[in-house]
Structures are given as structure tokens and as C-alpha cells.
């Protein structure tokens, strides 16, 4: 998995790993619990996790920056008393001059200690530029991309393996030819509405997350140039391709976001009935969901479906919240929330996409008769008896016999005897 | 396909039909309006699907730009006789041409009228249900689908004269009004003739019944044969013009009114020397003129069924309600009453088609549900003889014939005339 830029492994890796994880935790905790950070004096030590390690710098910078405003150009003007060329307008980003500008070590020290400034692509006044951004960037690149990729590829591998070992799950005893209604039209529309938007959001989101590392780093730098020895200019081409894809994906992702919220809300309401956990679910878990053989009883939804529903509800809520937050950055004054939001948003997305892959597999080509419930709204009686016997009994008022289960016939004969 | 069927099918396609076939976006809304779909939930009863053979013939032979579509191999295959036979059930058994689908259609497509045109091709190829073929034979022999002869009519007239004590003028030249009836009325509820006698007598109008043209039922319209429909309309028109009447009174019968009032002049290719008036229209006019004073009102909890061809497709929406307001004191509308009311399930020749009976009874179930939703209804006024027949069959099959009475509007008005004691019901 080449989602990580080439880097020689060193002994420090372990240390760096710990530091990154701690940073990530700090970011999340901070976003979750810390009061909104005001654009005030740097001595508020808003650096949190790293304020202690930088106390000396903080103390030094405290005097130097005293009396300056917090916007970057002003701060820069004060530092070293050196004039800084400004770009047109009020963007507030200094151009890099011969003496350096934005990379001024003092400035970075100041920022590290909690000084605040307006970043180059400011979407809201008063947003911070802070050193945590660098940690955020590295957490995103080194851990999120790597492990996110592992999760998604792993899920695909599990599905392929499952297919190879278990094959398509056929209806025991075949189709009966008699159907019973399972999902109303409004259920089906709610489901497919969310599914369609989910696919659009998922694809565009994956491009935003993995586009550059996959296309430029992996395909370009590693494979085409590194292994196949192609001209390095191919990397530039791939970068352009990526920038087009990224622009498209970002616009699409932003536009479909609110539609996703709507579709998600409809789905949550429409499918809530029957999705609360029941006693039968515990037994279902003990029997491994019947995937390993045997029969696991369930109501309208089994434990797996219920878990999936609540994942969609809870993670989906998180996705909607963090997503809207990213879409409307002016909702917050503090950049750290956005950093946390991007990480949470991506983690949630990877989880949802991974489980959705399994859901889609079992719901379509993985299990005979499942897709009927969402295409026609009806399922075969034998399918219902096998997978949702308690629901079958509720709906039809008939007893679900398990004559088709492995060993079911004998069990029944015993029961009769 | 037989040449006759295809030629007839293509002959039906004018700009209106073409607009309908072109505008359909397959939105499926019409299914929600069709009582056959509602009763069975079978997607094949989606109204627009019933037009499929016509759509294919249109696309292949008439549609603009079909040449370019053909270059890409996008023309549908020719409609075969087997296709027509496959669709026969949909065209005859499961469409009462009630036109409710037109109301829900975002494109306003008149599917009922288009089915009527499709039936022309079926009739030309002689692909039709046996029940309707039988009715057609009866008409050709006796001029009435139920085989009602002039002799039988005269017997009923004499009987009604005895019941009411009034003279019923027969074949009288120079009368103002000539009444025609549905065979169902003459055979199954002849007291309606007596009711006419009392109403005309009270209003002081001169009227007559003709022994040459007493039958309003038009099998030609039901089976879809313009030549037959024309023949049946012509008989009434010729007789009315011979007698020199000013009005022909169309009875409480759905399609009969449309057949002579709206289709008639077009079938004959000329306008008439008299005016066609529906009995409900006439009654309401007389009511407005104060010529039908009401005595005791009927106190039962009643509702009104809107026969499709009279209300939705005939335009007589307010008239029956005006009359009911005068004649009963406890009138309740059903949900969806008026123009969007549900069909009884047996119009458009379906009730004359024994093969379709089970489906018809199922569709009537939707009507019954609608009536039961109001609750506590004792009688339902049904101003259409064919609907009344369906109601009676349907209530019997649903085991409800004991608690719901089906009454004719004309009968109700006649019974409630001031100072008239209703005659004892005949055995």
C-alpha cells in the first residue's frame, strides 16, 4: 500500500508513531471538549498537548509579540520590524521574498506557541493558522490513508474469500414461488434514494481522499517512474488528471452533501420500526447468524441488519454533522474543529463504505432472493422462512417449518415424535 | 395480424391519439386510479400498459421521425394477431373506459377514449369476448342486447299503466319528449317506466315511447364497432325525427348517453333535428322550474354513486346532487365523490362479459370499501342502470345485498313527488 510517501524506515518510526497518535487523540479531544479558542494573545497556551514542551519558546515569544494583532501580516510586520510585501487585496498571505516570509522561523515559533493568523485560503474571518495543521496533515497522510486503504481492501478481500469458500447462498429448498411483501414502495424508494446518493458521495469522497496518493504517488512515482522507468513528466500529467478529478469530486461531493442529509433523514425515519434490538438477536449472535450453518432465528431484521441500520444512523449523523461543518466553515472560528472534522469524516466514511460493500454483496449477488425485497418489495416464502422466520410467522400467521435446514428434517421428526 | 385489424388500428390515429401516445412518460400514476389495479395490485392492469399494441403500431407506422429511428433499428416489431389476443383481456375485461386515469395523468391522456379506439380494431378482426359477441348478435336480431322485443316492452308498459293509473303514450307523433330505456331497465326494473309516467304527468309534458326505437343501450360503443354504433344511433334518430319530437330523453344509463349525445352526430355525420337530453338533466331543469314539488323527503342515510359516463365523462355533476338535496334529508357524499369517483367496476361492456365477472366483483370491492368508509349508509343512489346491475351482483357476491339498497334517481324523485303516494312495489 503506497499511500505513504517514500520514506526510509528509521529507528525513530516508533517514536513518531506514538507522537502522531497522541496528536490525533489531542485533536479529537480538543475538538470535542475544549472551549472554542479565541483569537487572543498567544500566551493563552492554546497549543494544548504541546504547550508544555514549548514553554521556553512561549516565554520568549511572549515578549516579542506583545502588542501585535493576531493577523498574520501584522504579526509579520512587527517581527524583526521587517516590511512584508502583501498580495493584492486583503488575502493576508505574505509573498515569499528573498529574505523569506511565511517560513520565517520566528513566525513558526510564534504560531507553535499559539499565535493565530489567517491562512491563505481563509473562508472565514478569524480562522487560525496553527502548527497543529502540520500534525493533521501527517496524521491524514500516514495513518488515515494507510489504514483506511487497508480497511477497504481488506473488506473487498473478505468478500472475495467468502464468495470462494461459501459460494452464493442459495435458498434452502429452492424458491417456493409464493411471495410475501417485505418492503413497501416508500421503503424501497427511501433505501435506493440513500443508496444512490451514498454511491455518489462515496466515489467522490474516495477520490478526494485517495486520488492523489493512488494516482500520483502510487501509480506515477512508484509504478510508472520507479518500477517501469517512464519519464518523470508522466507524474505531472497524472497530477493534472488528479487536479481535474479532484475539482470535479469536490464540487460533486459538496453539492450532493445536503441531498445525502435529506436521504439519510428519510431512511432513518422510514426504517426505524423493527430495527430496535430484541432478545432474538442475542441468540442470533450465538449462532453466528447462520452463516456458519445451522439456523439463526430473526424478526423482520436480523442482528446484522440492525447493526448496519444503527451504524448508518449514528455514523451517518456524524457524517452529516462533520460534513455540514466542512461545507459551512463559517460555523466555527477555530480551524482545529475543521481538522478534527476532516479526520472524523474520513474515518466514518471508510467504515460506512466498508460495511456497505458487505451489505451490497449479501443484498445482491451474494444471497439468492435478497434483492427481490428491494426491487419488487416481495420475497419468496422460503427465503423468509430461512432468514427471517419470526417475521414470517408474524406476517403469515403460519408456523415456519425448518424442514429445509440442514438436519432440520430430522429435528422436526424428533419434535413430532 | 389481420389486415382489417391493422388498417382499423391505424385509421383511428388522429392528432389527439398521437398526442396521447407521444406524451406518455411511463410515470405509472394511472395505476393508482384504476380500480382493477387497486383491487388486484397486478401491474399488468396499469392503464397505459393496456395501450401497448396501439403504441407499437403507432411507433411503427405513424410516428414522426420513425424513419430515423428505423435506421438505428429502434422500431418496434409489427403487432401480430397473437399480440392482440394477448391484450384482449386487458382491453375488454379490465377496462370500463371510466376515464379516472385521465384525472391522475400529469399529461391528461384520455386512456379510456383511446381504449375505445383500440376496440375498433378488435371488433374489425372479430377478436372480442364471447359475452359481447353474443350481445352483438342479439342486437342484430332483436335490436336489443338482452333480446327485448317490442312486444315485451308493450307488456311492461301496460303493466305500469295499471300500477300508476296513468296513460303511457306509445308511438305518438308530435310529442315533445321521446324516452328511450336501457334493456336492463325494461326487463329488470320496469317500474322506472311508471316513474317516468308520473314525472311527465306532474310536470305536464307531452311524451312518448316508441316501439321502433326504445333501446338506448349501444353495444356498438361497448364492443368498439363504429358501424354497429352508427346503426343503433340511426334507429333512434330516424324514429325521433319521424315522430317530430323536440327532445330524446336518454335514460339513467352511462354509455348510452355518450353514445347518442356526444358520439352520435359524429357517427351519423350530421347534427340532429332534435336535442338529446339526459333524464337527470331534464329532472333538474323541471326541479328548477318548480314543476316537481317534493313531498316527504327520504330520511334514510344515503349516498350517491357517480356513474363515470354521466358525471366524469358526461358533465352532469351538479344535477344529480340538486335533485338529491330536494329528495332526501340525510345525504352524505363519499370520499372522492364527483368527478373523481370510483367506477362500479362493470361499465364499458365488462358487465356483459361473463369471463370478466370475477375481476369485476373484485373491482366492485373497491367501490364497496369507499361506501363503507362513510359508515352507516342504508341506501345508495345509482343513476345508471348498468351500474345498478353491477351493484346488485357485487353486493350479492360480497354478501352485502341485505343491508344496502340500490335505488334509481328517477325512481327516488318520482316517489318523493308531493301528494303522490308511492305505488306498492310490484312483485
Amino acid at each position, binding site marked *: 500500500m503506497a499511500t505513504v510517501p517514500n520514506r526510509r524506515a528509521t529507528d525513530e518510526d516508533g517514536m513518531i508513531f506514538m507522537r502522531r497518535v497522541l496528536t490525533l487523540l489531542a485533536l479529537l479531544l480538543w475538538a470535542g471538549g475544549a472551549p472554542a479558542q479565541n483569537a487572543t494573545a498567544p500566551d493563552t497556551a492554546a497549543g494544548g498537548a504541546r504547550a508544555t514542551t514549548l514553554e521556553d519558546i512561549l516565554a520568549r515569544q511572549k515578549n516579542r509579540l506583545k502588542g501585535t494583532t493576531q493577523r498574520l501580516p501584522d504579526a509579520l510586520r512587527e517581527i524583526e520590524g521587517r516590511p512584508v510585501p502583501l498580495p493584492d487585496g486583503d488575502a493576508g498571505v505574505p509573498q515569499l521574498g528573498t529574505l523569506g516570509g511565511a517560513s520565517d522561523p520566528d513566525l513558526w515559533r510564534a504560531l507553535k506557541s499559539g499565535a493565530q493568523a489567517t491562512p491563505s485560503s481563509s473562508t472565514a474571518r478569524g480562522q487560525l493558522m496553527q502548527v497543529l495543521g502540520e500534525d493533521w496533515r501527517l496524521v491524514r497522510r500516514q495513518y488515515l490513508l494507510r489504514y483506511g486503504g487497508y480497511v477497504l481492501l481488506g473488506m473487498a478481500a473478505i468478500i472475495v474469500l467468502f464468495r470462494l469458500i461459501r459460494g452464493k447462498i442459495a435458498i434452502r429448498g429452492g424458491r417456493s414461488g409464493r411471495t410475501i411483501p417485505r418492503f413497501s*414502495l*416508500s421503503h*424501497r*424508494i427511501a433505501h*435506493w434514494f440513500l443508496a*444512490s*446518493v451514498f454511491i455518489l458521495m462515496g466515489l467522490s469522497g474516495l477520490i478526494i481522499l485517495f486520488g492523489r496518493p493512488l494516482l500520483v504517488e502510487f501509480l506515477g512515482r512508484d509504478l510508472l517512474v520507479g518500477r517501469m522507468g517512464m519519464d518523470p513528466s508522466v507524474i505531472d500529467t497524472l497530477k493534472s488528471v488528479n487536479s*481535474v478529478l479532484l*475539482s*470535479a469530486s469536490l*464540487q*460533486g461531493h459538496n*453539492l*450532493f452533501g445536503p*441531498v445525502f442529509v*435529506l436521504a439519510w433523514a428519510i431512511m432513518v425515519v422510514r426504517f426505524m420500526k423493527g430495527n430496535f434490538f430484541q432478545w432474538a438477536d442475542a441468540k442470533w449472535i450465538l449462532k453466528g447468524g447462520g452463516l456458519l450453518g445451522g439456523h439463526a432465528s430473526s424478526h423482520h431484521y436480523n442482528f446484522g441488519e440492525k447493526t448496519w441500520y444503527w451504524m448508518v444512523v449514528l455514523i451517518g449523523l456524524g457524517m452529516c454533522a462533520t460534513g455540514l461543518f466542512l461545507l459551512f466553515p463559517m460555523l466555527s472560528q477555530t480551524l482545529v474543529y475543521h481538522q478534527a472534522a476532516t479526520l472524523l469524516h474520513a474515518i466514518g466514511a471508510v467504515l460506512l463504505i466498508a460495511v456497505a460493500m458487505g451489505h451490497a454483496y449479501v443484498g445482491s449477488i451474494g444471497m439468492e432472493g435478497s434483492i427481490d425485497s*428491494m426491487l419488487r*418489495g416481495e420475497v419468496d416464502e422460503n427465503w423468509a422462512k430461512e432468514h427471517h422466520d419470526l417475521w414470517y410467522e408474524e406476517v403469515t400467521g403460519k408456523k415456519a417449518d425448518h424442514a429445509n435446514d440442514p438436519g432440520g428434517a430430522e429435528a422436526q421428526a424428533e419434535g413430532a415424535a | 395480424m389481420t389486415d382489417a385489424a391493422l388498417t382499423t388500428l391505424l385509421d383511428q*390515429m*388522429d*392528432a*389527439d391519439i*398521437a*398526442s*396521447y401516445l*407521444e*406524451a*406518455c*412518460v*411511463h*410515470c*405509472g*400514476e394511472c395505476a*393508482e386510479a384504476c380500480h382493477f*389495479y387497486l383491487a388486484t395490485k397486478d401491474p399488468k392492469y*396499469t392503464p397505459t400498459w393496456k395501450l401497448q399494441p396501439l403504441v407499437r403500431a403507432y411507433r411503427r407506422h*405513424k410516428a*414522426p*421521425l420513425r424513419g*430515423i*429511428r428505423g435506421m438505428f433499428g*429502434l422500431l418496434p416489431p409489427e403487432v401480430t394477431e397473437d399480440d392482440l389476443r394477448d391484450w384482449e383481456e386487458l382491453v375488454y375485461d379490465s377496462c370500463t373506459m371510466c376515464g379516472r386515469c*385521465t384525472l391522475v*395523468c*400529469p*399529461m*391528461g391522456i*384520455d386512456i379510456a*377514449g383511446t381504449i375505445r379506439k383500440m376496440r375498433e380494431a378488435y371488433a374489425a378482426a372479430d377478436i372480442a369476448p364471447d359475452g359481447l359477441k353474443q350481445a352483438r348478435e342479439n342486437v342484430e336480431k332483436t335490436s336489443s342486447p338482452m333480446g327485448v322485443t317490442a312486444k315485451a316492452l308493450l307488456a311492461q308498459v301496460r303493466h305500469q299503466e295499471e300500477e300508476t293509473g296513468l296513460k303511457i303514450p306509445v308511438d305518438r307523433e308530435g310529442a315533445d319528449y321521446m324516452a328511450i330505456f336501457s334493456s336492463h331497465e325494461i326487463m329488470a326494473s320496469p317500474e322506472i317506466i311508471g316513474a317516468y309516467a308520473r314525472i311527465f304527468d306532474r310536470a305536464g309534458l307531452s311524451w312518448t315511447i316508441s316501439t321502433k326505437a326504445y333501446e338506448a343501450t349501444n353495444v356498438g360503443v361497448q364492443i368498439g364497432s363504429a358501424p354497429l354504433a352508427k346503426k343503433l344511433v340511426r334507429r333512434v334518430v330516424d324514429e325521433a325525427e319521424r315522430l317530430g319530437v323536440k327532445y330524446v330523453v336518454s335514460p339513467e344509463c352511462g354509455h348510452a348517453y355518450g353514445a347518442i*349525445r356526444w358520439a352520435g*352526430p*359524429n357517427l351519423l355525420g*350530421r*347534427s340532429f333535428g332534435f*336535442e338529446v337530453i339526459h333524464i337527470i338533466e331534464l329532472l333538474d331543469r323541471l326541479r328548477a322550474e318548480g314543476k316537481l314539488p317534493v313531498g316527504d323527503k327520504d330520511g334514510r342515510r344515503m349516498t350517491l354513486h357517480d356513474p363515470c359516463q354521466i358525471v366524469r365523462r358526461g*358533465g352532469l*355533476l351538479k344535477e344529480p346532487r340538486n335533485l338529491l338535496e330536494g329528495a332526501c334529508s340525510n345525504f352524505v357524499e363519499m*370520499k*372522492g365523490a364527483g368527478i*373523481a369517483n370510483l367506477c362500479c367496476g362493470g361499465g364499458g361492456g365488462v358487465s356483459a362479459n361473463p369471463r370478466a365477472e370475477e375481476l369485476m366483483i373484485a373491482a366492485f370491492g373497491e367501490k364497496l370499501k369507499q361506501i363503507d368508509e362513510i359508515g352507516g349508509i342504508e341506501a345508495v343512489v345509482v343513476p345508471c342502470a348498468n351500474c345498478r346491475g353491477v351493484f346488485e351482483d357485487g353486493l350479492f357476491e360480497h354478501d352485502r345485498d341485505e343491508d344496502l339498497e340500490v335505488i334509481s334517481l328517477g325512481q327516488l324523485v318520482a316517489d318523493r313527488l308531493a301528494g303522490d303516494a308511492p305505488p306498492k312495489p310490484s312483485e
Partner: protein
Amino acid sequence: MTVLQFLEGPMFYAAFAIFAVGAIWRVAGIVRLGRKPDLAPPKGSAAAGWFKGNLRHFVPRGLFAERTWMHLLGGYAFHLGLFVLLVFAAPHIAFFERFTGLSWTALPRWGFILAAEFAFAGLIVLWVRRFSDPVMRQISDRDDHAGSWLTFLVMLTGCLALEEAHDALRALHMGLVNLWLIYFPFSRLMHAFTFALARGATGAVYGRKGMNP
């Protein structure tokens, strides 16, 4: 000539010509079939009925709306959304102005985005219903799906090009627009024009009967 220049130049002219000529040809072809004069004495005006029928069918009857409200919401959202974003989006107005010289007030960007959200939500609901409802599965054909997908892709590529930073994305959008224009007159997308004929025909018949369902 770049690809984009071709797609916005010669190709667009050709596509638009096919669209315009084809659509006019088809409508004229329908009207040309003619109808026999109605000899039955009218109770009301056919012409008034024609207009009334056209207006009446814009609004569903409550009785039916109760049953199919999801479909109705989807239909309204899609059609109104599409209309607004087609006619009032600033990039579209700029495009029209290039050819016609006409210009009008554009919606603010958020309004245009909102219209697009409605249109997308509506179109997806309509399409999703098409494949998950037995009635719709029965009556739908390839043309229905092709029309839905083409329209969706035109809208999607339009929204992907929102940043207006890459010619490739604009070209993709324009290419699909051209395809859509060419497909239009041969397909059921023509309902955008034929709806008036169908509603009018029924409206006129009922108008003569002195009523209007």
C-alpha cells in the same frame, strides 16, 4: 481548435439544429394527423377547455396525491429545480448570451446550488421508483432509462464543473449536453413539448362537454 471549442462551436450548432428541427418536425407531424370536426352540439368552449386542461393537470388532485405523494414531490422537485438551474444559473445565462445576446438576472450562487439539489433529489427519486416499483418495471422501456440517465449525467457533469477551473470538465458537460440535444427529439424527452398537446386534446373534448376534469 480545442476539443472544448469544437464542442461549444460546430458540434453545439449541429446538435442544437438537430434538436430544434427534430422537435418541430415531430410536433408538426403529430398536429398534421389532424382530427375530424366534432359535430355534437357543444355545451362549452373547446378552446377554453384546451387551456384549462393544460393548466389543470399541473396540479394533482388531493385524492390521488395522498397515494403517490413521494412521486409527486420527486416530480415537482426535479422539474422545477431543473427549470430554475437551466434558466437562472449564471454560467448558463452567460452561455445563452454568447449566442443570443440576451441576458437576464442570474440567481445568486446559493440559489442555483439549491435548485440543483432539488433537481438531483427529485430525479434520483423518480429513477429509483422506476426500477423498484412493479408497475414501473412493467411499463418502463429502454428509452425511459436512457432519458433519465442522460439527463442525470448532463446535470452531474454540470455540477462537477462548478469550479469552472478546468476545460476538461466543461468539455465533458458540453459533450453530454450535445448528446442530450441530439437524443431529445427522438425520445420521450419530447414530453417537454407534447404534454401541451395531450392535455389540450383532452381539455378541448371536456371543454365541449361543458366541464373540466
